[in-house]
């Protein structure tokens, strides 16, 4: 099963992320890759560098960022794991690192299952 995880920051301390947090994140990422769980990941620039394309009332509209939400998407990761609980455990480890290394940071991650061939295949 494949899961897409999007991480949002809800409270960012004024200080930049400490070096030991970045180091711990890199180590966890390496671990997840070596465990065969992490397929892909990446950081996301602030939405001020992005745009939103919307369809409403038959019209395509483009709005440049920043988006108005208080939460900024900061990164994404794709895991291939055997259950939702495994994905949740990897994400929990990731958030634990933030708790332990960057006081004041708060955020949330959405864990979303990506449809795979099993969702479209013939009934087993």
């Amino acid at each position, binding site marked *: 099963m494949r899961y897409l995880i999007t991480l949002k920051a809800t409270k960012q301390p004024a200080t930049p992320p400490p070096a030991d947090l970045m180091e711990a994140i890199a180590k966890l990422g390496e671990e997840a890759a070596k465990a*065969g769980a992490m397929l892909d990941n990446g950081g996301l620039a602030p939405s001020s560098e992005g745009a939103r394309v919307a369809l409403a009332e038959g019209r395509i509209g483009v709005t440049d960022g920043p988006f108005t939400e208080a939460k900024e998407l900061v990164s994404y990761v794709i895991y291939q794991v*055997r*259950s939702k609980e495994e994905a949740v455990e990897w994400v929990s480890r990731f958030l634990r690192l933030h708790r332990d290394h960057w006081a004041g940071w708060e955020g949330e991650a959405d864990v979303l299952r990506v449809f795979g061939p099993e969702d479209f*295949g*013939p009934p087993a």
Partner: protein
Amino acid sequence: MAEGDPGRVVEAVWRMESARIVGALARMVHDVGVAEELAQDAVLLALEQWPRTGVPDNPGGWLMLTAKHRAIDLVRRNTRYAQKLAEAGRDAEDRVRSAEDEVNEALDDPIGDDVLRLLFVACHPVLPAEGRLALTLRLLGGLTTREIARAFLVPEPTVGQRISRAKRTLTEHRVPIELPPPAELPARLASVLEVVYLIFNEGYSATGGDDWMRPSLCEEALRLGRVLAGLMPDEPEVQGLVALMEIQASRIGARTGPGGEPVLLLDQDRSLWDRLLIRRGLEALARAEALGTLGPYGLQAAIAACHARAVVAEDTDWERIAALYRVLAHVAPSPVVELNRAVAVGLAYGPARGLEIVDALLDERALRDYPQFPAVRGDLLARLGRHDEAREEFRRAAALTRNEREQALFLARAAAQETC
């Protein structure tokens, strides 16, 4: 993981950590069977305690630590027993201390050479192939006996027997829990790669029943391959196997039609191919190529990559594929490789050239019951306009396959020859 159903959390964490825990314990107690029992004890304790106390902040660490304590208790008990026999007290206390050091060392090893050792033990050549498969899925995949039985369509007690017999054999042969010495490494690694690829193929094209695939076995094999690639990053064939599996797995979504019927490679809707897996496969192939000469898995990956790179089937570089098959036939000669070469040559240089290669294989005993042999021959004959002969070949292929979906496909191709 603070919340969540503790039972499901235990299951997930066990799957994530079992290889590391069992591997570390096995190095201590020198017996994979005992190590697994100790680790299972820790799981039972978790199932007992977590519903009351809540899931600990670091559930994986909790399991590892609990299992470690049980292992130390066991070593202590055994040592005390040995102590009584030998009446050599100080020596025994040293042994407990060194066992504790070993466990602490194992706990400090985040990525886990222990996992690698365990994989080499589970795939040890003293075990029959089916024992290696079952033990690998059990110890490295954390799969239950029932899950393994379901995946391989064999009765649960059979799998249970294979696993316990395999563990007994390892103990009887005193197989050490360590990496093979450098001189033995290539042969032992070949056995590991073989087991991983067997698991993949069992999932990729199920040999029995009416399921065309069992994707979860593919995922498990891919996971094992990625773990192995992470632990042995400098072995070109490990990268080659991973590349091969990533690229093959990228096609899973395109390999079956709406009715569950198999769709052959050249007929597949390539927009359904998984671009992420293709990218990962091509990257692994590039790493394999950078590490040296491609071996059999790397060459097969290079062939798979030719298909992956072709946006439409007509763009396939058949000449390159035919050339790669010629190299593959040289380093790993087999009638099946030669048959595949015939397909490539047939598409690169015309069906007559392909048929020449196929007809040279007519006396191969190994291909006598292989459904793809008449299927390929039928295809080449059909393209040469020899429809009656082609029909016979497709019928033969249908009679040989044990996969019901594939059988239907061959019968349809046989029927199509009537209208030509």
